[in-house]
């Protein structure tokens, strides 16, 4: 069962990544090009394997390009939050006294705002768009890294060999490089993979509510919102973006589970 799950995770993730990267080669259609005379074609129509939307745009092209957008947003937010959270976590771990207290209280404050609500509000204030949605999601996601890394630094500092190293006059930078990073890397990878799917789903939710990526850009969330109006005559408009989203989340989650079981079974996120 465990192996099956792992393989499934790797497989699905590979499929999604391939689809995103190869989108322009997988379909001849432009996801933005409307052909009003062939609107709402069902899946399996000639030239449109997943059908078309109300404006005659090819749904396969839109779902594939949606994957690009989703992965792009996911990767950007994960990288940003990892760097910001990592730096804050290291700071809090190494300099215990008040920097630690500040970072940890900031983390409490951050956690007290549900991150979908926070991201939506920030977007509504600073304006909608791709850059802002990435930044607002990142603003909400750094906490987990900071906590994990701080914990790791604290526990590494307790170990004898580190005390020994410090006694030998080895600087903090080296300590960090030689001992903390290798220890913390697996946890970070696991956290990143689990956060990734959360961000992709959150972005879709925010776009679905109209505070994220704006039409006509093919984002899964806004495609779902548009498809909702035609749910009773064209189920495919809501079904495929929804399925793509769920599949992506599933694949990355399974992958994350496998990474956790392999690298860091005690981690709970």
């Amino acid at each position, binding site marked *: 069962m465990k192996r099956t799950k792992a393989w499934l995770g790797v497989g699905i993730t590979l499929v999604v990544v391939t689809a995103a990267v190869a989108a322009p080669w997988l379909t001849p259609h432009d996801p933005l090009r409307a052909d009003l005379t062939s609107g709402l074609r069902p899946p399996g129509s000639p030239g449109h394997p997943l059908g078309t939307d109300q404006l005659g745009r090819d749904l396969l092209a839109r779902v594939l390009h949606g994957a690009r957008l989703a992965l792009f947003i996911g990767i950007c937010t994960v990288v940003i939050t990892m760097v910001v959270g990592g730096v804050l976590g290291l700071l809090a771990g190494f300099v215990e006294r008040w920097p630690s207290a500040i970072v940890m209280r900031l983390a409490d404050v951050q956690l007290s705002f549900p991150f979908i*609500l926070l991201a939506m509000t920030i977007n509504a204030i600073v304006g909608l768009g791709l850059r802002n949605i990435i930044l607002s999601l990142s603003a909400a996601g750094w906490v987990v890294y900071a906590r994990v890394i701080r914990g790791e630094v604290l526990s590494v500092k307790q170990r004898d060999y580190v005390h020994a190293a410090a006694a030998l006059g080895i600087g903090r930078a080296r300590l960090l490089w030689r001992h903390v990073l290798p220890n913390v890397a697996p946890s970070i990878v696991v956290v990143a993979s689990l956060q990734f799917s959360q961000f992709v789903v959150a972005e879709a939710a925010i776009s679905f509510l109209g505070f994220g990526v704006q039409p006509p850009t093919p984002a899964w969330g806004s495609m779902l919102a548009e498809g909702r109006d035609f749910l009773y005559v064209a189920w495919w408009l809501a079904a495929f973006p929804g399925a793509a989203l769920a599949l992506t989340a599933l694949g990355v989650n399974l992958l994350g589970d496998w990474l956790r079981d392999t690298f860091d079974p005690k981690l709970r996120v």
Partner: protein
Amino acid sequence: MRGYVLSRLAQTALVVFLSLTAVFGMVRLGGDPVLLFMPMDIQAKDVNEFRQRLGFNDPLPVQYGRFLAGAVRGDFGESLRYRRDAMGLVVERLPATLLLGSTSLLLTLLVAVPLGIVSAVRRDTLVDHVGTVATVLGQATPGFWLGLMLIYLFSVHLRWLPTGGTGTAAHLVMPSIVLAAFFAARIARLTRSAVLDALHEDYVQTARAKGLAEVRVVGKHTLRNSAIPIVTLAGLEAGQLLGGAVITETIFAWPGVGRLTVQALLNRDFPVVMAAVFLTSLTYTMLNLAVDLLYGWLDPRVRVRA
């Protein structure tokens, strides 16, 4: 215990203060905050008069002080759309959200904890596999998508349940299922692994060796020890439950804080947004405090460490 309680209370007060500050800072992210606080039908020429009246010409510390003084009394200004005090509006919607939240929480615990326990005890059986698939799918399915599908099936096709709104217990069924789904999946997985961990502990092995019935082994020795991580996660995730309520309430037209916030954002009614965001944060912080106190009571070691 008393020292622990006091220190937690002090921390909580600090967090509340910081989150107020964050709310104050948030509306200044986009540049000129006065644009967020003017009534809909204001003319461009009246903007300056408004800036003056709302005090946006004062130095920032003065504005901040005034904001804090107001916030302490629950005064976040007047809603631009409803022309009433913003916090009052939000507080009115809180019971609906708490009702939905607690129903979901109850549903989660009723389904997820037994599922997790059974999966752990009957590890690698059919029950465990089905449970695993269900939880993995539950975690991957976006709530808004699940909501649409449920409406399609249960309201339009079968006509068993209403599409949205409030009034009867039936109105509560779909929203709480959607809100609980993701949460339940996480709790079930956590319960499973916590119980598995506990089952491997020495004292459980000892209890088994003593010939205690399996039900008692699991019930008495395992569950209490697994309870701590579950309670912790429940507390941590309560914030996301409140966040999930934003989406669920919107889809099912549930008149809670989440839907009010979305509408206020759409209408650019920022006094209400500020009040709602702060109240959500406050609710979460209080829940967390409660969880921490409960935690301290469950596990005496925590008190000492704090």
